[in-house]
């Protein structure tokens, strides 16, 4: 069995940033394992621009953003081993891997960073009725076919779900000559960024049907038609509202799921709200010495936040390897009214400050984020606009943390008075 100080699983933006931060903190034996042919993760297929405005103060495309981190890694002795799949992770930090170059190999790691990203929900995960014909793809799979392999998956397209990947693909396929007939969204609001609704749908006059869903899929070998119906407040289709679209392709953009098979095998505690590991403020999981960051922890919409989160995970792994242990009594964070989840899920009393990331469950205008310790308000932050599609965050400084008497802290939304 070979030994390495720090092993990072996944060479996407999360893994790259975490490895770089650990290097800067003095860790010298770092190995990144990546199952794909090259590092960069999902960014390699996200050829559109819109990355790095926070980080680099300029708008980069996905490959450019990844390229900057890959260049930085090349200036260090961090090793990236591509074409290498991690099959299993144990609680004592042994990784079982396979690669064409090294065959099967077991690696003992001093510390591990989980940076496996996420994958798309498929038709099975949301159970759409109708025929089992070809022509139905997840939006990300279609993106990979088009941007990496150079194949168009269809000519007349309907998109189910208004997440960012679906919106980006609506524009991309239109520019490549396809006709995108409609984007259909179950909820009364879009899950994507406003800017993507404007520049991907409005720019090309693609209609967005909110509170609608696909109720039938027709076709023998290849998809021929999809039926779209309006839904009521309980999301049940309303009879008589059916619209039929003649199309050869249906793209699904119905959400992402953190990829945590390895974490589960290792026995890491998973939060059912995020589908990612439960972590402390330093992104350490329930297994000491195993950290998590990026989309494997919770789904991010902006890569800039992925990089920032991963840097703290990388620095924490370095501290762990140097024998420093986070200490203090546990304070649990509770998602209160209007809040879907929080990351971290708990923190150690006495830490310098805590930055809490979360998603709201609804669209809010002129509302406030309240952080409370039982009945006592610890902090309150005003927000003009909040939406489930945009990750929120608040930072609680030490002076306020020191006022917490109990063992829990609740984050909730206070709606504007009518």
């Amino acid at each position, binding site marked *: 069995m070979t030994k390495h100080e720090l092993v990072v699983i996944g060479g996407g933006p999360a893994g790259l940033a975490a490895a770089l931060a650990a290097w800067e903190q003095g860790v010298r034996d770092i190995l990144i394992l990546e199952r794909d042919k090259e590092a960069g993760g999902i960014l*390699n297929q996200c*050829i*559109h*621009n*819109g990355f790095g*405005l926070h980080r680099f103060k300029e*708008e*980069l*495309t*996905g*490959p*450019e953003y990844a*390229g900057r981190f890959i260049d930085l890694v090349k200036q260090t002795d961090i090793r990236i081993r591509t074409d290498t799949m991690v099959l299993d992770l144990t609680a004592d930090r042994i990784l079982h891997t396979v690669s064409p170059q090294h065959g099967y190999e077991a690696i003992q790691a001093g510390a591990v960073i989980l940076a496996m990203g996420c994958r798309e929900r498929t038709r099975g995960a949301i159970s759409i009725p109708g025929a089992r014909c070809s022509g139905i793809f997840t939006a990300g799979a279609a993106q990979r076919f*088009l*941007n*990496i*392999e*150079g194949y168009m998956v269809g000519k007349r397209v309907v998109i189910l779900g208004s997440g960012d990947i679906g919106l980006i693909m609506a524009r991309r396929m239109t*520019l*490549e000559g396809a006709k995108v007939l409609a984007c259909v969204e179950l909820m009364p609001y879009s899950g994507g*960024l*406003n*800017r993507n*609704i*404007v*520049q991907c749908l409005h*720019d090309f006059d693609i209609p967005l049907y909110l509170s609608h869903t696909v109720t039938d899929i027709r076709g023998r070998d290849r998809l021929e038609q999809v039926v779209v119906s309006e839904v009521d407040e309980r999301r049940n289709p309303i009879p008589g509202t059916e619209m039929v679209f003649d199309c050869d392709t249906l793209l699904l953009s119905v959400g992402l799921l953190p990829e945590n098979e390895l974490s589960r095998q290792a026995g890491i505690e998973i939060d059912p709200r995020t589908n990612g590991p439960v972590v402390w403020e330093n992104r350490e999981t329930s297994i000491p010495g195993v950290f998590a960051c990026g989309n494997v922890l919770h789904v991010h*919409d*902006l890569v800039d936040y992925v990089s920032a989160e991963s840097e703290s995970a990388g620095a924490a792994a370095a501290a762990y390897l140097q024998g420093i242990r986070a200490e203090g009594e546990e304070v649990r964070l509770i998602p209160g009214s209007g809040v879907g989840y929080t990351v971290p899920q708990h923190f150690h009393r006495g830490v310098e400050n805590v930055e809490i990331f979360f998603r709201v469950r609804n669209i809010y205008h002129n509302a406030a984020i309240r952080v409370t310790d039982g009945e006592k308000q610890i902090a309150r932050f005003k927000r003009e606009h909040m939406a489930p599609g*945009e990750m929120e965050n608040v930072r609680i400084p030490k002076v306020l943390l020191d006022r917490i008497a109990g063992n829990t802290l609740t984050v909730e939304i206070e709606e504007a008075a009518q």
Partner: protein
Amino acid sequence: MKELICITCPKGCHLKVDEETFAVTGNSCPRGAVYGANELRSPVRVVTSTVVVEGPARRLPVKTDRPIPKGKMFAVMEEIAKLRVKAPVAVGDILIPNVAGTDGNVVATKNLQ
């Protein structure tokens, strides 16, 4: 007053633009004012796509190095579709200068060794 959503950054501010003076309100930063006025006068967009590679890698991602007039997006795509590239190419290399008569260039967004 024309209502717009600023697309300059992910925040997506709701802007109001005066059709005569091009004065902008609702922006959280100065870039929003520039966007709002431009969007009414002459809207521009960055185009990103991929080009055919002669070699083992199949596609090379590219972009226009500045926003080009919105009405020229399909003309730019046509020129990009005709292009064939060979390694080596570095990020930022100009592949098509003044694409489709705009003052933007098509540049590589990835290294190709």
